[in-house]
């Protein structure tokens, strides 16, 4: 049976502009999570839970790390949590990045945009356990928003792109695709316009994308988060996704 978890806050840090890294203690989740899955967090005073991707796990210490951007009331309240407090979470929810079909020796392109970078980091860590070559393209608004570059550099050939050129390459993530060379498959997570650009640019490549939508239940019951599929049907982002094959869904 699924559970509602009380996760203890271990650490809260601002690691970039408006960007919070929070480490939570919950051994079960730390052991079960697949990259791309999310926590569905209850913030007291708000009706709906907030979906936040898992950015890393440490199954030995029993911890789970999330990164989030402060955009509205819920994330603002969450950012004010102190170590020792607990967060009510459902999870790990959804289906993450399937990496079973990633073969030894493949070259994998990872594309993360903004607050879509954390689940891509989690995936990169998992892939780095396999014998594959990783190339990461990370896009941010501007220099102040950049995070996790060093962590990526340890495991992947890393390109950082900022919209305004204040750090790394200037422009959109797609602007450096010409530099990254050939790859076997790609994985991407980021804002919808970025995913649209990425999937269009790479339309002939095998790829998986992680999507967002406003959620009600977060567990597949309410039909708030549906997405049309190419076979004239639909998928639920919260429970069928958030990760889908780029070929399968209509963005």
């Amino acid at each position, binding site marked *: *049976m699924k559970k509602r978890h009380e996760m203890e806050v271990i650490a809260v840090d601002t690691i970039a502009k408006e960007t919070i890294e929070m480490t939570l203690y919950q051994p079960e989740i730390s052991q079960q999570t697949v990259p791309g899955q999310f926590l569905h967090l209850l913030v007291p005073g708000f*009706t*709906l*839970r907030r979906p936040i991707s898992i950015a890393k796990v440490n199954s030995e210490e029993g911890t789970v790390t999330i990164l989030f951007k402060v955009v509205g009331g819920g994330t603002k309240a969450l950012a004010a949590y102190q170590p020792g407090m607990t967060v009510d979470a*459902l999870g790990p929810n959804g289906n993450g990045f399937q990496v079973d079909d990633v073969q030894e020796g493949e070259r994998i392109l990872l594309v993360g945009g903004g607050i879509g970078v954390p689940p891509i980091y989690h995936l990169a860590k998992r892939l780095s356990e396999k014998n594959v070559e990783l190339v990461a393209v990370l896009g941010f608004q501007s220099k102040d928003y950049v995070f996790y570059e060093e962590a990526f550099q340890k495991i992947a050939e890393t390109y950082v792109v900022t919209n305004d050129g204040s750090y790394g390459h200037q422009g959109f993530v797609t602007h450096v695709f010409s530099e990254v060379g050939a790859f076997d498959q790609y994985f991407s997570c980021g804002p919808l316009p970025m995913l649209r650009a990425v999937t269009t640019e790479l339309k002939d490549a095998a790829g998986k994308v992680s999507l967002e939508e406003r959620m009600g*239940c977060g*567990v597949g019951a*309410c039909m708030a*988060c549906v997405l049309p599929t190419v076979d004239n049907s*639909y998928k639920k982002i919260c429970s069928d996704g958030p990760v889908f094959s780029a070929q399968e869904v209509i963005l």
Partner: protein
Amino acid sequence: MNLEVKLPGLTLKNPIMPASGCFGFGKEYSEFYDLSRLGAVIMKAATQFERFGNPTPRVAETSSGMLNAIGLQNPGVERIIANEVPRLAAYDTSIIANVAGSSLEEYVFVASAFNQTKDVHALELNISCPNVKEGGIQFGTDPEMAKRVTSAVKEASNLPVYVKLSPNVTNIVEMAKAVEEAGADGLSMINTLTGMKLHLPTGKPLIANQTGGLSGPAIKPIAIRMIYEVRQQVSIPIIGMGGISTAEDVLEFLQAGADAVAVGTANFQNPFACVDIIDALPETLMNYQYTSVQDVIDRRGVQV
């Protein structure tokens, strides 16, 4: 403590059921607890054909509430009977089917379809969905239309019919009386209030459908008022809903005039909402000197 309630067609082990549309067909929440604990399950709306519903975003958060405009997405009544009802029937609980449509004919089609199965125990006739452009809403705001669809469905169906009323009306008592006269076995109230939220950066409605239905604790005072008003003038049973999230809320609904209750939005915040309420109900009733759910209903009878 005895939590049992008897309603037309339904003997409920307790008065708590998940509200239509907030629990799918039970599959997802069956991964959190045993659905046999529930008084009943009200399924997501069924229409004649499969419906894909409205574009997204379909939900928005509001103070103590939320807006939704799902648009009755469902696989169609035949597939519901074939795939969903049998799975739910494995649990020791009652099943109520929520019947929707855009025309009288569609309501009748869907209602009669449920005659095929022995596993559905009652119909909830949804004449109050604010989120579909055609049909639904007129049936729920015009007493004559409500009467017609209720009579037609009563005639077509072998099952007790609970008509689900819309709160978006000037006079709820008039609507309740109309469907009672038309032969409704019970009422279900309230559905959502039509609301809207704007997306400030664009100044446009945040929900793709523009308006959505407001649910959650924000609307509880309106639900209580409407149930209380209807209870004074109508004698068929009422399944009450609108913002219930605690056992105290359930007591308030029962005192106001409901005979059983449904829990909607609260499931999203707490997937265990229904069972947590069932667990807390005996102590809550005791704290207020009630000896059973029926006792609340009986003593309300005396007071009114």
